[in-house]
């Protein structure tokens, strides 16, 4: 395995652990945390490609900064929604929030 492939393998493993967490857990805050793990996996892949690319050096890192900013925005909004939901129902299990079911 080349070094690039090692970093990509780590990234894929972390991404799918995060997606398992998103699918398996009930608590909304924990789902937000698992989405953060998945975004971190993406960042590893971006920096690895940026590091081993013969031409586009540094562009991956620029995109990682954009991902950082949007992850921070996503965490703030997601946790604010979680707190608002908790205030509404005193619960945070995703099964309790099915009002928008068609």
């Amino acid at each position, binding site marked *: 395995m080349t070094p*690039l*492939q*090692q*970093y*990509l*393998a*780590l990234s*894929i*493993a*972390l*991404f799918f*652990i995060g*997606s*398992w967490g998103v*699918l398996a*857990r*009930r*608590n909304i*805050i*924990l789902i*937000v*945390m*698992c989405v*953060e*793990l998945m975004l*971190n996996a993406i960042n*590893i892949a971006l*920096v*690895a490609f*940026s*590091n*081993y*690319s*013969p031409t586009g*050096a*540094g*562009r991956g*890192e*620029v995109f*990682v*900064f*954009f991902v*950082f*900013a*949007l*992850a*921070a*925005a*996503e*965490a*703030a*909004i997601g*946790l*604010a929604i979680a*707190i608002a939901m*908790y*205030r509404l129902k005193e619960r*945070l299990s*995703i*099964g309790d929030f099915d009002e928008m079911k068609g």
Partner: protein
Amino acid sequence: MPESQQTAFILLSILILTSAFCVVLFRNLIYSALSMIGCFLGVAGIFILLHAELVAAAQVLIYVGAISVLVIFAIMLTGHRAGDLRLFFHKQAWVAVPICAVAGIALMVVMATANYNATKDAQNPSDDAIASLLFNEYAFPFELVSLALLVAMVGAVILAMKEKK
């Protein structure tokens, strides 16, 4: 990779993957948040191995500093009860394991067989080069992202604000 870097990579991978599993498996949300911090620190180490020191510093500042504190505050502000496993894990948890495993293995196979045209050594440029990329070529996306952050901040304040009676 040199021998020492290889060892560091393996140790950091073990840290990242075990703490990621702990995030999913712990029943106490505070423990999950703490293992999430461990995972973020491991990813910062990986960035240093990849010669992206600026990104590693930003990772520590933003994830370990800001997002973890935000998550821990949210956990403290909401109650969570101890109890049966069914309270924590969804009914579909055991179906999700093979789905994620199969998708992950398929992606691994694609990754292992692809032709990358990659260089052997590090190519990541200095912080100056990244800054000039960010503020020249990517100036417009940078401004868009700052606008998105502003909108998210206002939205989060409005969502979390108590309604006036």
